[in-house]
């Protein structure tokens, strides 16, 4: 009797020591989850730096002067929507449906690219108005934290393009499916980091 024909309760009855190694999917997800957690620890360090330095404006502009909350709300909505479409993409991938998967992937890519574009234009406007990362410790911490998040999103966009190419050339083989699963974990984790960013950096602006 193969393991695939077992019902859930039967699996539970097999002692842990006799179940054999965990399936590859579970191991890969766990390993990538560990990477994500270590990535979040990096962000924790940057958050700590920002929290410590957020009042050290050196006579320069403070967060209240610089941040536009309606713009941040729009960025948040875009990133949240891309997280949702990424979820729909992974559902379509689970069912091996190429067209829906590619469409949701494309929507995810466009939303992510819009987010990065909005962030870049915000950075550009701030630097133009003399509030660049060299102005004060507060702005250095701000650009490092938000910039690192933006770099992660950009890396995710690049990864998504690579996955498009792999699905088109290799098809839905197990290796590609695992990578797609890791990508969606990465994308959702970036949205979690963004919750911290908009709460602490933009809404916590004093």
């Amino acid at each position: 009797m193969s393991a695939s024909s077992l019902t859930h309760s039967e699996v539970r009855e097999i002692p842990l020591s006799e179940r054999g190694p965990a399936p590859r999917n579970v191991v890969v997800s766990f390993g990538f989850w560990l990477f994500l957690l270590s990535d979040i620890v990096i962000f924790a360090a940057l958050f700590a730096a920002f929290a410590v330095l957020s009042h050290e404006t050196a006579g320069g502009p403070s967060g209240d002067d610089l941040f536009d909350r309606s713009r941040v709300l729009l960025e948040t909505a875009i990133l949240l929507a891309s997280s949702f479409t990424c979820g729909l993409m992974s559902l379509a991938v689970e069912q091996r449906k190429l067209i829906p998967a590619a469409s949701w992937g494309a929507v995810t890519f466009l939303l992510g690219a819009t987010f990065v574009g909005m962030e870049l234009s915000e950075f550009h406007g701030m630097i133009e108005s003399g509030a660049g990362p060299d102005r004060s410790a507060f702005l250095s911490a701000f650009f490092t934290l938000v910039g690192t998040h933006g770099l992660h999103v950009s890396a995710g966009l690049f990864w998504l393009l690579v996955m498009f190419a792999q699905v088109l050339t290799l098809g839905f083989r197990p290796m590609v499916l695992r990578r797609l699963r890791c990508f969606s974990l990465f994308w959702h984790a970036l949205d979690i980091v963004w919750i911290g960013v908009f709460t602490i950096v933009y809404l916590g602006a004093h």
Partner: protein
Amino acid sequence: MAESIETTEDQEAGAPRVAGGSWQGYLIGLVFAIILTLASFWVAGTDMIWGPGVPILLAVLAIAQMGVHLVFFLHISSAPDSLNNILALAFGVFVVALVVFGSMIIMANLNANMMSMPELMNMQR
């Protein structure tokens, strides 16, 4: 979001499918996330809430939204497959709290106990 154990033929033999959720699950998560996000922005901008309570409320809303994302988008559950993930998450949260709050406490102490730069300059004269 019933955890299904069915397998598809091109997956490794006997591999229980990692709970992938359903579109209803993603939709519920999206609705919760939208409500919590709007609540955060409302709390930050309103005068209806006692000032010192605002940061606490923002923190609560942010942690709630992170929980929503973990459950509905990242599918962290109490399923046996997910046990190691939860333990790793607990350790990650511990490290994050240590780094963030540790830094803030240490720097606040230093700020309180050290003389500010101008005073230091005056003493040298």
